[in-house]
Structures are given as C-alpha cells and as structure tokens.
C-alpha cells in the first residue's frame, strides 16, 4: 500500500505516425491528490463504492488465476490495471434503467449493475446456466467475438429512443475492437440515428500481443468520433474520478437526446490477456513497471488517505472485506448444482424443430441409437 509521490504524472503514449501524445482528461495525480485543488470531487460514498468494486475485481483476478493454475477453473479475462476505467464508467450509469453491453473484461461494472459475482464465477467454471444474467438485470451477454456487440448496443439504444424512453446504453470494448468493421458500422449508424449510446473504449495498450501502435496510425481513437458526427473524449483511464466525470457527462448528453459519445480511456493491462497468455513473450517488464506506477487502486487509496483520513489499517479493512465477498461468491458458485447434458438442449429455439427434439431424445436415451436425424 506504499504511496509514492511521482514527479511526472504521465501515462505516456506516443500514438500515431506523427508521434503525437494524446492529452487525456485527468483529475487525480498519481498519488491520488487533486491536480486542481478547487476541483469538486464526487461524494465520498461514491469513491468508497468505487474502491470496493475495484478491490473486488482485483481479488477475483487473484483467486481465478490461482484456481486456473490448479486446474480448477477455465477461462477468465483479468481486469488488473483497468479497474478505474471499468468502475468509474459503471458508477455513472443507473442500474435501474440503463444498460451495459459488455465485452468480457468488465466484471466490476457488471457486479455494480446487479449481475451477481457468483454468476460471473460460474461462467469461468463453464457453468453457463448458473452464469445466466438474471431477469431484470440490464446486462447483455458477454461478447467473445470482438466488436460484434457494438451494433447490438446501438440497436438497443436506438430502440429505447424509438419507444420514447430516455434510458442509455454503455458499450465496453478495447482499442483492438476499434479496428473491426463492426465498430465502424455501429458508430456510423449510432451517429445517423443519434442513438443514446456511450462507446467506452479501453485502450489497455495490448490486443493480446499486438501493441496499440500496430492497431491504428491515428494519434487518438477518440478523434474518430468526428468522422461519425459525434463527440469523442480521451480520459486517463487509471483515474477513477476523471473516468466517472466524463462518463457522467456522456450519459447526460445521451439521455438528453444529444446522441452518442466515444470515450477513449487510456489504461494499461498489467496482467495477462487471459489464462493461457504469456506477456513475457511480447513485452519487457519495463513498460509494466512504468504502468504500475499509475496503479489505479493505489491512486484511489491515496485520495482516501489525503481527503477522507483513511489510514493503512482502514484501507486494509476494505481489502479484507473484498476478499470475503469474493470468497463467498466462489463458494456459492462451486456449490451450485452443475449443468446437465439435458440442459445443453435448452434455449437454442423458443420453438425447437422436431428434428432437434429427436436428437435430444436420442442423446439422452440408451447409447448406440445410431440415427440422430
């Protein structure tokens, strides 16, 4: 929990062929102090809730990675290093009315929006039925085809507007996704129909092993918004308060009928892409060490220390609480009844073809029933 005051509060990126460095919007210095002492921060409970979610995410990552190495858990995409971007944005939307279209690295946002942590754990365990998003929780399915959920998010936002509701959709994706056609088509349509959608792009520096520099020659990805006829903004994605603020502004604009916003949050994936990734093969430890100096959790802890009187013991207590919550979620998920082969046949259709019903009966009957027609 050591807090160091750094001389250069910089997450340096030299993007684009022109070598321009984007100037992200920022509220907190690397030690958690307000860069502008006159800046009005959000109420303390919001920051505390933010830290709770960030710690939850970090504890989940640790636990999931450990279980994966023991062969007890399949896939998971750790959020290590990106917690401020994920949580700051999620805190700016209303779970009772707004929607999240996730990619797959936004655990804390989903939990804040009402998806039980145990259901996320269940997903990592391969228990897809237990991982079902409960009715009433406004979260779309995780998306494993990069950028494919962006047109869905636009359609959802557009549909809500067509029905005169003023609910907003936030879509999460990465800088890699911004190279996909679906990103372009979704942004273009969103601009044309002024869909109430917030495109939340987390540039974490790496699409598996592909660096940001190989992804786009543009200095900023937020700059692309101009080509679609809406606003783009670049924010320090490791700054909880800055992310919260720019997202709240984008959500308010969308709610008021002013259309989409593209938020580019500059952050850094401190850990692995997924459980089978090995970053040592494509990046040296230096960039990680540099990025770790801007650890988003440390910054929020610093903020609470400086402005709310939290000492190391108080902060450690928050961390223990997160550990307990993650522990309980894993226990719940592991104790849940496992999925059955019969359940595999459910939900492909509301009205399944007779042929599929025959296949189901054959699969569940005695072995050796040759024809499955």
């Amino acid at each position, binding site marked *: 929990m050591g807090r160091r005051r750094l001389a250069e509060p910089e997450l340096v990126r030299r993007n684009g062929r022109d070598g321009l460095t984007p100037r992200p919007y920022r509220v907190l210095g690397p030690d958690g102090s307000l860069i502008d002492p006159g800046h009005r921060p959000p109420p303390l409970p919001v920051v505390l809730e933010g830290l709770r979610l960030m710690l939850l995410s970090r504890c989940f990552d640790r636990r999931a990675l450990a279980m994966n190495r023991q062969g007890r858990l399949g896939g998971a995409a750790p959020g290590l290093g990106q917690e401020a971007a994920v949580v700051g944005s999620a805190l700016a939307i209303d779970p009772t009315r707004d929607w999240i279209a996730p990619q797959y690295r936004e655990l804390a946002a989903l939990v804040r929006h009402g998806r039980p942590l145990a259901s996320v754990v269940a997903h990592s365990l391969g228990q*897809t*039925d237990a*991982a*079902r*998003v409960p*009715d009433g929780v406004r979260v*779309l*399915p995780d998306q494993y*085809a990069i950028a*494919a959920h*962006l*047109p*869905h*998010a*636009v*359609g*959802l*936002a*557009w*549909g*809500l507007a*067509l*029905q005169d509701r003023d609910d907003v*959709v936030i879509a999460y994706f990465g800088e890699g996704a911004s190279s996909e*056609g*679906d990103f372009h*088509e*979704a942004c*273009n*349509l969103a601009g*044309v129909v002024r869909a109430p959608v917030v495109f939340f792009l987390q540039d974490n520096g790496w699409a598996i092993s592909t660096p940001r520099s190989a992804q786009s020659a543009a200095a900023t990805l937020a700059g692309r918004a101009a080509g679609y006829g809406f606003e783009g903004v670049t924010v320090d994605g490791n700054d909880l308060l800055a992310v919260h603020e720019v997202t709240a502004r984008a959500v308010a604009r969308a709610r008021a009928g002013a259309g989409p916003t593209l938020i580019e949050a500059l952050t850094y994936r401190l850990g692995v892409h997924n459980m089978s990734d090995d970053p040592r093969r494509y990046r040296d430890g230096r960039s990680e060490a540099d990025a770790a100096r801007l650890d988003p959790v440390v910054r929020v802890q610093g903020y609470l220390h400086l402005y709310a009187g939290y000492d190391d013991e108080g902060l450690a207590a928050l961390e223990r609480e997160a550990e307990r919550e993650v522990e309980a979620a894993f226990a719940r998920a592991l104790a849940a009844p496992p999925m059955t082969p019969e359940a595999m046949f*459910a*939900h*492909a*259709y*509301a*009205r399944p*073809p*007779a*042929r*599929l019903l025959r296949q189901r009966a054959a699969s569940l009957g005695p072995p050796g029933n040759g*024809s499955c*027609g």
Partner: protein
Amino acid sequence: MRLTLVEAVRDGLATAMAADPRVVVLGLDVGRLGGVFRATDGLLERFGPRRVIDAPLSEAAIVGSSIGLAVSGLVPVVELQFLGFALQAGHQLGPQLARYRYRSRGRYEVPVTIRAPFGAGVRSAEFHFDAIEAMFTQCPGLKVVAPSTPADARGLLLEAIRDPDPVLFLEPVRLYRRGRQEVPEGERTVPFGKVRLAREGSDVTLVAWSAAVELCERAASELVGRGVEASVLDLRSLVPLDVEGLVRCVARTRRCVVVQEGPLTGGFGAEIAATLQEEAFGTLAAPVVRVAAYDLPLPAGVAEPWNVPDAARVVAAAEAVLG
C-alpha cells in the same frame, strides 16, 4: 384476393404491422423508394418513419442493430436487399442473431425476421442473387424459410414475424411477379415444418424449395408427355425440416430427384438425399439423384442460365431414376 408473390409479401408486412405496433421494418431503400423490388411500397406512408426505416448502407449494422432493437422490445423485420450481401452481415446473422437466445440461456429472445430476395433468372449484376441458403442451415437457432407461392409467402411471412425465433425468409426473385394466385386474407399463417404437395404423381417425387418448385412443376408437365407422373414436393422451410412429410411422399413414389439452384457440393439437396438414405432406404427403388447448379460461381451475363438447372435437366434426372 389475387396477388403476385411480391404483393403477397407487401400485404403480409402491412398486416403484421397493423396487428402489432412493435413491428418495425428496416433496411436499404425500404422507405421512400419502397424497396428495390417494391416489397415495402406504401408502408412508409401508412406507418411513418419510426416504423419504416431507411438504414445506412451497412448490412452488419442493420442485422446487428436488429438484435438490439429486439432486446429493446421491438419486432424488427429486416430487408436485406439481396441474399448475396447477407455475408456482409455474415457474423451478425449467423453466430450472433442465431444464437443470441442460446448463449444468453434464454434471457433474451430475438424475434427478428430477415427477408432476403435471391436466386438466378433475372440477369442481375454479380454477387447479388447467389443461392447460398444452405450456409444458413448450418446456423443452429436460425430458421430458414423459402416459399414458392404467393399464398405461402404471405402465410409463412406472418408466421416468421410472429415466431419468437429469428427467421431467414428467402424470397424467390424470379417468381416475384410471375403470376397471381388467390391468397387468403386476415392473419392466418402457414406453419413452419410442413411440406406442401404442389402436384401429385405416382412415379417419382421432385423435391425442391423456393423458385426451383416452379421449375419442377414445369418439368412435371413435360414428363406427362413422356408417360411419367411426377409428384412435386415443396419443402417450404429448410429449418425446421419436415422429415416425416418428406419420407411419406417419397415412400409413395419410391423414386426421388432433389433440385436446388445453388452449386451441387454441400448444398441442401445433399441433406435431403442423406435424410432419405437414413430414414427411407427400404422404400427406395433407386438412388436419389440431385440436380443443381454446377460447382461454379454464379456467372454474370449470358452464361447465367447455362449454369442454373432448367426443366430439361430435371426431366433427364427423373428419367434416369426411373431407369
């Protein structure tokens, strides 16, 4: 009422929109122009721009956004201008739309209908009309429907719009204006997964769907002159497939020719032949024969009709299975 096939589609759309305010139509040129084939003519005037929506030229966004529109509570009916361009939206149509319900474990239903005109015979520009329907039968979760008559087009379209599952609704361009037929009014639908016996004969069954049904009917008329009575079986829907109806009909004639307008290899005709081999082998007096386009890209220009099956090829195949 007596309608052409394209009029029946239009009337079906209007009927569905009038019956259910959640139904919206979107696609390229569907509003002011009324669709390149005029299938949506008059809908904009009648239902307004919030329900009849001209979209940007962006197939993946059109199909992809229809998933979100459905989640928001609407019932989207998408017009893909030409089936050939369905592959521009390939991932959204197959993996995304088809399995949205499955991968959300039933949390989200996406009652989207994707209408797509297709098939050779109108001498159009390249790519537009490729008969690639078989590809979409490999997308579990998606229903694939292919009417061949005005009455079926209207009834199956109403069923597609009402069905809670996503449906790819294939319209035979060549038959859009071929003739009028008495079409029932009201909201009566035609169910999926029930074959239609278009013509009854005892010697051989010609199995087809969409425009190839009309081709088979012409072939059957020619066969009469050669002393052969052919049944023509219209599958109507490829997914769900009416295995029982297919087997029942072929068992009566004991001989079968399956006709498709797409290339031979990997086509849906192979599925029919394999199904009959599994389910009706004992009733067959001869191997099932396929008539298909050659394993070539659909040629542009004057070569197009040389590639796509014609009545003469169907007649020859029928005579071959009769020995």
